[in-house]
């Protein structure tokens, strides 16, 4: 017995203690990684799922929303629901599917008021400023208006009619004597409420609302549009005296253009 053996055993137990701590810390670290990786995989929002008004970019929303469902409760329509594990939407977060029940764009925006965490931005006070997504006419081949018919339903149901969506008239090349009325969405005004997609009379909607990052292209930062720059610089071209290359004509001119010279 005595000093030596007891100090020996206490060193041993200290080593065992430190070993246990190291093992537990390692395990916790591994678990954190697994949970994190799972979260990374589970956080991509499917294209047809839209967030309530006022929700920020998806990554921010998933940090802010605590999945209480108060927005769901205060929505007067059956628009919002909380995702469960069967959907591709991150568990417990609120979403809606435009083709099923779109957002009715309440003037008082009760869902935003209900949110206790500001995951839905309380600074959104005018529902017309909402940005839940962006409508895109995805299929010209089935859209009735593109065929020269006057369906117009998506245009008529839009709560921001004539601002977010307009009908642009152009020539009907099939009949050669009528007009076509092309439903045209204006991305700076569309709120993404989804009423157009809901109302589309086709079996499968030709106009759909997607989260904005899926619906919108982006010009490169360096890109300049000559005519815009010209307007900005009082009609002066940015590159004065630029050589104007000759316009190239197609090899076979259509009949109407026979004899035309640039």
């Amino acid at each position, binding site marked *: 017995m005595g000093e030596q053996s007891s100090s020996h055993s206490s060193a041993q137990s200290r080593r065992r203690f430190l070993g*246990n701590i190291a093992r*537990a*810390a390692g*395990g*916790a*670290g591994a*678990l*954190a*990684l697994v*949970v*994190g990786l*799972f*979260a*990374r995989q*589970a*956080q991509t929002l499917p294209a047809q799922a839209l967030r309530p008004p006022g929700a920020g970019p998806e*990554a*921010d929303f*998933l*940090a*802010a*929303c*605590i*999945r*209480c*469902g*108060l927005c*769901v*409760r*205060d929505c007067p329509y059956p628009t919002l*629901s*909380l*995702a*469960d*594990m*069967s959907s591709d939407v*991150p*568990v*417990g977060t609120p979403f809606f599917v435009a083709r099923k029940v779109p957002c009715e764009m309440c003037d008082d925006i009760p869902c935003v008021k*209900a*949110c*206790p*965490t*500001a*995951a839905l931005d*309380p600074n959104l006070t005018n529902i017309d400023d909402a940005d839940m997504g962006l409508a895109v006419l995805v299929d010209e081949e089935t859209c009735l208006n593109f065929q020269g018919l006057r369906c117009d339903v998506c245009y008529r149901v839009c709560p921001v009619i004539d601002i977010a969506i307009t009908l642009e008239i152009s020539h009907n090349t099939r009949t050669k004597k009528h007009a076509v009325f092309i439903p045209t969405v204006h991305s700076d005004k569309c709120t993404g409420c989804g009423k157009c997609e809901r109302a589309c009379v086709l079996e499968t909607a030709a106009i759909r609302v997607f989260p904005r990052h899926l619906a919108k292209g982006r010009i490169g930062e360096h890109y300049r549009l000559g005519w815009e720059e010209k307007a900005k610089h009082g009609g002066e071209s940015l590159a004065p005296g630029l050589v104007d290359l000759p316009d190239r004509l197609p090899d076979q001119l259509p009949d109407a253009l026979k004899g035309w010279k640039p």
Partner: protein
Amino acid sequence: MSAKSYPGSDAVKANGWFTAHKWLIARRVSQFTILGLFLTGPLFGLWIVKGNLTSSLTLDILPLSDPFVLLQSLLAGHIAADTALIGAAIVLAFYALVGGRVYCSFVCPMNFVTDAARWLSKRLGLSKGWQPSRDTRLWILGAVMLSALGTGVLAWELLNPVTILHRALVYGAGYGATVALAIFLFDLVVSRRGWCGYLCPMGAFYGLLGRASVVRISAVRRDDCNDCMDCFAVCPEPHVITPALRGADTGTGPIVISGDCTNCGRCIDVCAKNVFQFDMRFHNDLPNASVSDESASASTNRHAAE
């Protein structure tokens, strides 16, 4: 042959069935009432409490939020609006008063499931199974917070069976039963009282709060203890009892001081000798201190008594 041989039967004989079950009944009433308050709205259109346990609004005025989830959100990089912060402060203050893991014993919906698994495992005489360290859940709590910090999202809330179950109960969102079944089977077959006892980071979080909370169990009449062991048999965290009940010789006070104690009060129920009662953590002095002299850690109280 006597009809004895379930924990608490002595207490039933001594004090009557009702007294020997009063805290169990109180707990069930509390659990069902809380669930019921969330459900009157969706079921009958009578809105008393909206939301779910992560954040709710009672009678359109009282906000309550779960600090465990809000802490994850904070670490993920979002500072919540005042409503949620006030709600979390109220909840923290409440549990700091009545006992951190009162959440577990009187509120948490998973407790139905784990208690049911414990009951069945006792009926079937199943073995304890896997018994890791009680600290495991603290490490898991750390991992949960780390994952929120690392990913910038509420990563654990994609998996948290407790919030998934409650959301399923209140919102009818799917897979609540699956999650409950998984926990039930784990507790039944893999590890007795395994989920709450070793793994649940939510319980660990409230357990940390419980390390400082005011209302505690006290083995105030521990001198009457006849070593029937019934309290150990019913307690979900039996290691918390020993220092309080057996501490007379070592100069430890009668208060169950460990944050792991859920304040479920079942020990009070099943003790035929009425050893236990609820008390405040400050009443941890040694009443009839029959102290042995060589006891090293003499408390100031004891000096005063001598």
